[in-house]
Structure formats: C-alpha cells, structure tokens
C-alpha cells in the first residue's frame, strides 16, 4: 500500500496517539497517481464500491458490515436508529389507586420505560394543541393489581411470592383495551409489553395499583423511552499488518498473547519454523498491547479501515432489528426531501441569493 493510499484509507494507531483520523476523499485534496483520482460524487461509482454484508440476525440483534461509505453517513444511520425512529410508549398515567410504597411519579416513570410492541407506523402523533385522544393516536392499557394474603400458603413459608397473591406487579399485569380500529388491525399481533417479566413495583397485603395508561407516538430525541434500540453502534474494521515476519516458538507465543484469543495464528513456514500470521483481525479490540513490547513495535502496524463499519443493532423488541435499519434510511430520505421543499419555499420568497 502506498503512503498516500494508507493515509487516505486507514486510521493508524500508535502507542500514544491515533493518526489520519479525518477522511480526505474530497476533490482537490490528494492524488494517489494510480489513475483513480476523481473524488467527486458519482452515484455509479458509489454503487460499484458500496456493499453490505449481513453477519447474523435474530429478533433482538443484527450485526452487519457497511463497506465504502463515509463516517458521516454511517453516523447518520446510527444516530437516526437511536433517536429518530418513532415508537409507542406510555406517556400518560391516570392513577385511580396507588397505595404501594412507590410514589405516583416514580411509578409513571417506570411504566414509561416499558417497551410496548405496537407498529407505530399505523399511528399518528398526539396533537398537543387539540389534546384529543383518538384511536389513531392513543393506545390504552390497564393495570389493576391488588395484593392479598394467600390463604393457601404453607404456615412456615417466608417467601412473599407464596405468602401473598400479587406480591409483584409486572408488565404481565398490563392489559390492552382496544379502541376503534385497533381491535381489527392488531388482531394477529395484539398490543402488549415486549416481555412479560418486567418488575414494576412490589406490594404488601391491602395495597393496590390501579391505573389507566395512555401510549403515544414519539421519537427518542424527546425521550429515550421512544428509542427502538437498546443500542445501535458501529466500530471500524481492525487491520493488523505484519511488516516483518515474526518467527520462533517463544517470539510467536509472546506475540500471540498480545492480542485477544483467535486474532493471531501460528503456522509452520517454509523453513519449518513456527511463524505468526493474522488469523481474524475482526476479533481484535485494538488494545495496542503489542506496541508496548519493544521487540514487536517496529514489526507490526495497527490500523483501522476508515470506510468499513461493523454495526451492531440491538432492538428493544418492538421492531425486528432489520426493520429499524430500513426505517432509518426512510427517515434520512424524508429529512432530505423536507429540506428540499423548504429550500424551494425560501428561494421563492425572493430572498436575495
């Protein structure tokens, strides 16, 4: 790799600092001299180089690689997944009875954070001006939990779960009250909390929690309870380059131990001697331990590939994680379209340009 190419496409890690951090893939910055110097935007070129590789998918997590995009785009996707994809969450709690030890406002806050499985795309935002709840903007859930002594409990038990009925109030106690179109639209996938074992509060005999919960549509930007992801993150693909061969049983073993298990492999070379090779750089945490060893510091180069992003999207369970990524793209497109519309409006107003 030429020094220019290295500078352009890799972030380099040193013992005490990181270099080549900013991207420089813009017209008029650098030339590689290999004929591929046009750095202006071209959709065709982008389509040729861009790629996505899915590693694994299950209902809660998705891992995939996004290759050949700039950090600003990768970051836009991550940020949108966290804070701009609408979901439904409990926004209003009407407390009829709460005689437990937990105060109303603490209870309401805890309820708000429980993920509710409902497709927010079928709903509208609650209009704060009219303050009118309709079947299109509100989902109603009920909690009615009353704790009593359990007459069937063994005399010698100290376990409150046996001694009392309804000792713990959990998300399983939330029941959905369909409104208007909802009963039909959600007949197959009834609206409910994503998991049924979320502890909300605990009660003693004679105490009760009775409230009506109104879920509204919102985005993570205004409150984290509306975020559809537990987390969405990316890291750059680690790359380890051996500048000189590392040979010999003791040397290779010491070298291998500088990295997490599975990153470095050892194989017999042509002379029959054990030689280290890079087996799976993806597993590396980029701890830079190897650079602390003077015998290795000049033999290895630690870099990260600047335009290769390894995403991990962890859903809260409301949407499948691949749906969140697809929706993020839609949100970004919508943002641009809205901006274009606003631009036309502003320029037509006769603003001097």
């Amino acid at each position, binding site marked *: 790799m030429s020094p220019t190419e290295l500078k352009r496409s890799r972030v380099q890690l040193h013992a005490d600092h990181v270099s080549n951090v900013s*991207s420089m*893939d*813009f*017209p*008029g910055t650098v030339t590689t001299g290999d004929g591929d110097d046009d*750095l*202006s*935007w071209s*959709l065709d070129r*982008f*389509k040729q180089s*861009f*790629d*996505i*590789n*899915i*590693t*694994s*998918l*299950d*209902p809660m997590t998705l891992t*995939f690689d*996004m290759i050949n*995009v*700039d950090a*600003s*785009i990768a*970051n*836009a*996707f991550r*940020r*949108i997944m966290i804070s*701009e994809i609408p979901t439904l969450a409990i926004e209003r709690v009407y407390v009829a009875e709460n005689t437990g030890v937990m105060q109303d406002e603490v209870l309401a806050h805890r309820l708000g954070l429980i993920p509710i499985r409902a497709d927010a795309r079928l709903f509208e935002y609650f209009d704060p001006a009219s303050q009118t709840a309709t079947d299109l903007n509100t989902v109603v859930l009920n909690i009615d939990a009353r704790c009593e002594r359990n007459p069937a409990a063994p005399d010698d038990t100290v376990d409150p779960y046996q001694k009392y009925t309804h000792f713990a109030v959990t998300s399983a106690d939330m029941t959905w009250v369909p409104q208007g179109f909802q009963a039909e639209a959600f007949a197959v996938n009834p609206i409910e909390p994503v998991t049924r074992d979320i502890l909300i509060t605990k009660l003693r005999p004679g105490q009760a929690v009775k409230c009506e919960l109104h879920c509204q549509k919102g985005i993570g930007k205004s409150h984290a309870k509306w975020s559809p992801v537990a987390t969405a993150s990316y890291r750059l693909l680690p790359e380890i380059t051996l500048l000189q061969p590392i040979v010999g049983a003791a040397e290779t073993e010491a070298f291998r131990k500088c990295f997490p298990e599975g990153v470095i492999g050892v194989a017999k070379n042509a002379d029959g001697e054990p030689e280290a090779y890079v087996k799976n750089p993806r597993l590396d945490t980029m701890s830079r331990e190897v650079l602390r060893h003077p015998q290795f510091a000049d033999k290895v180069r630690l870099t990260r590939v600047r335009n290769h992003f390894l995403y991990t999207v962890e859903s809260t369970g409301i949407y*499948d994680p*691949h*749906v969140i*990524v*697809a929706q993020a*793209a*839609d949100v*970004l*497109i919508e*943002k*641009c*379209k809205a*901006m*274009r519309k606003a*631009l036309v409006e502003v*320029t037509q107003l006769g603003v001097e*340009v």
Partner: protein
Amino acid sequence: MTFVIRDEDHTLANSLRWMLMKNPAVTFCGYSIPHPSEAKVNIRVQTDGSITAVDAFDKGLCDLIDLTEHVKTTFVSKIEKLDYEVPDTMAITW
C-alpha cells in the same frame, strides 16, 4: 452563503457537509451548531462561481437521497438473501 436549519442536528448536517464537499464546484463547506440548547444548524457553502450556493445545496440533498436509497435497496436485498446466521423460526417481515 449560510443556511440556517431549524430542528436538525449532526445527523443531517454532517452527511450533507460531506456530500457538498464532494462537489468540485464547492470551494468550502462547513457546519456548526452555535449553541447546544438551541436546535439550530448553520451550514456555510461557498462555491467557485460556476453554480450558486443554493443549487449546490440542492444537488447535495439530491445526491444524499440517491445514496440513501441505494443503501436501503442493498440492505433489503442482502437481508432477503438469508445467507447469514439466522434462526429458522424467524420470518423476515418489513
């Protein structure tokens, strides 16, 4: 020319800045958020005179839409290939 965008943040501003800088006619593009508690972004665009800043801005938005649409179609087609680690019980719905 400086564009002031309300209710936007780094998400749009940084990707748009990158896209504008990709345009050879744009000699300078940068953005700033003057105050963190004000939902406002200033994007400054300066061109070499061959196009106006408004046109460059609009082209940047169009290019960003093209890019995102391609990312989405690629992602959807890769997911539907099912050539990755996925439980058999999982049905792919959008």
